[in-house]
């Protein structure tokens, strides 16, 4: 037992806890992130120093010299740096998903590598159990995150992809994994067979990861990303048990627990349960429904008319959604807001907790466009203010402003808290077409008598509006 290393690990764990604590307040969040990064540095440095000074058995064997280790760290750091510098704020959800996957994937590789290195000796019971768990959680995290990444990037359809018996198959695969675990425990004296078992579990778990995420639609992505984040923590915990390392266990558990809480907050915001998101296949039943009933009494308006309405308003509430992110229109939104403020209009932003594709997505985008965060109002705070608002502009939000959620008992989104946009005197909806949102259902808001549709690309329309407002 090397006390210096153990103490460094304790210090790292304390820094992680403090860092996360600070990250829950706007003012101290950056410091918290820095503390956590310092904690990580301490942990890595202590591990390296220990390896350097370790006795021959724990020293670096000839097969992997120091140059390789340093090279690995440098390569990883450069790629990580590039990722973080290159990513656009609209691409944040994808980045979090892919980094998550890498973390989960690394945990699996460590566990497999551990078993392979032990090929000369017999695997103990605890070895088998911990390695299996690590592989299961890590592989699911890895492939699940990759599917989430592909969905968010638009490489595969964002719609739920469900087939008959999907949940049944998932259950069956899970049982196969558990059976393999038991089998591996029985045959663990035959190291070759045990290796095969572990490989089989890796493959099955990887398939499971894909099948768990494919049925989940884009609207539920915030929850999924958050949940996968929790899983990647748990994968680290499992790997900690494999290696008998307390730091991995503590840190992984912190992330796992906090991630599950965050996922739950998301679910509450959608008035659904975690189980429902995981097994619901949101958006299957609705596909029939979206076909029934064409839109009626849709009123269109031109940018000139819309600009007049906005300019003569005392207060305007802007409601951004995923469409704003796709069109990368956050800067255009801010320009319009500034143009209106110049004319003496009071502008605020209404943010639905699950607007976008990741928790807090809209806040990040608008912060990037220099919108002061005092102007970002949360749902509970703003919902009573729509009644007094002269105009509301909906930019690429759909399901989160659909009154069907409060009125229509048969609606799949019934019960989801929405922004009461329809209560504003005039509602201007900027939208490419009357296409449905991710829930695949008709939006009653578009038929309201006080709603005007402004068809076109969000960015272009906002620019036109700004121009018109400036000319008035």
């Amino acid at each position: 037992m090397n006390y210096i290393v153990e103490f460094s690990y304790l210090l790292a764990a304390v820094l992680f806890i403090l860092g996360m604590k600070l990250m829950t307040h706007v003012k101290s969040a950056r410091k918290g992130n820095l503390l956590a990064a310092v904690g990580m540095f301490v942990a890595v440095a202590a591990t390296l120093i220990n390896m350097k000074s370790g006795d021959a058995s724990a020293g670096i064997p000839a097969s992997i010299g120091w140059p390789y280790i340093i090279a690995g760290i440098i390569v990883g750091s450069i790629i990580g740096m590039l990722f973080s510098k290159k990513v656009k704020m609209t691409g944040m959800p994808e980045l979090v998903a892919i980094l998550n996957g890498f973390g989960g994937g690394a945990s699996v590789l460590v566990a497999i590598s551990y078993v392979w290195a032990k090929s000369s000796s017999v695997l103990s019971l605890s070895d088998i159990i911990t390695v299996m768990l690590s592989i299961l959680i890590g592989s699911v995290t890895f492939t699940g995150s990759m599917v989430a990444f592909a969905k968010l990037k638009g490489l595969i359809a964002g719609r739920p992809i469900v087939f008959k018996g999907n949940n049944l198959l998932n259950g069956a695969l899970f049982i196969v994994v558990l059976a393999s675990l038991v089998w591996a425990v029985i045959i663990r004296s035959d190291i070759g067979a045990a290796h095969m078992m572990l490989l089989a579990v890796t493959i099955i778990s990887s398939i499971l990861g894909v099948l768990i995420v494919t049925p989940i639609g884009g609207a539920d992505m915030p929850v999924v990303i958050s949940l996968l984040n929790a899983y990647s923590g748990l994968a680290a915990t499992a790997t900690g048990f494999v290696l008998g390392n307390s730091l991995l266990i503590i840190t992984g558990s912190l992330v796992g627990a906090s991630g599950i809480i965050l996922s739950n907050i998301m679910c509450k915001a959608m008035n659904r349960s975690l189980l429902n998101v995981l097994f619901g296949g949101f958006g299957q039943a609705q596909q029939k429904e979206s076909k029934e009933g064409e839109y009626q009494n849709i009123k269109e308006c031109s940018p000139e008319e819309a600009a007049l309405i906005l300019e003569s308003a005392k207060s305007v509430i802007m409601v951004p959604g995923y469409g704003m992110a796709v069109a990368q229109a956050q800067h255009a939104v801010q320009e319009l807001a500034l143009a209106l403020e110049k004319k003496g209009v009071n502008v605020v932003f209404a943010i639905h907790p699950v607007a976008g594709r990741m928790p807090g997505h809209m806040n990040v985008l608008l912060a990037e466009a220099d919108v002061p965060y005092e102007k970002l109002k949360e749902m509970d705070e703003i919902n009573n203010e729509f009644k007094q608002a002269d105009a509301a502009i909906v930019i690429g939000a759909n399901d989160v402003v659909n009154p069907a959620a409060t009125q229509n008992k048969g609606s799949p989104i019934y019960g989801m808290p929405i922004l009461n946009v329809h209560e504003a005197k005039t509602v201007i909806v900027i939208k490419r077409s009357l296409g449905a949102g991710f829930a695949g259902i008709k939006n009653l808001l578009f038929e309201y008598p006080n709603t005007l549709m402004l068809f076109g690309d969000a960015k272009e329309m906002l620019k036109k509006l700004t121009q018109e407002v400036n000319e008035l």
Partner: protein
Amino acid sequence: MIDFYLFIVFVLAIFVGFEIINKIPPILHTPLMSGSNAISGITIVGALLSLPYASPTLAAILGMFALILATINVVGGFMVTDRMLKMFEKKGGK
């Protein structure tokens, strides 16, 4: 069997994790997620620890691969979180 003290540590850490996050403003959901995502890259320590014991080449290759993936997770995660939080610090528009 698994070291029991590790199990104790695990249970207590879960409680701490639950306690840290009780109320958090939505504006911070994304940074908190990417920040804790970076922290889950602690697996980097696991990757380093597994390397010295990796005698067959295959285990060494897996370990190296794990090291690179975990490093990407850690460095990318912390840096992008910082980038986001920097934006929140900026008060007001230009």
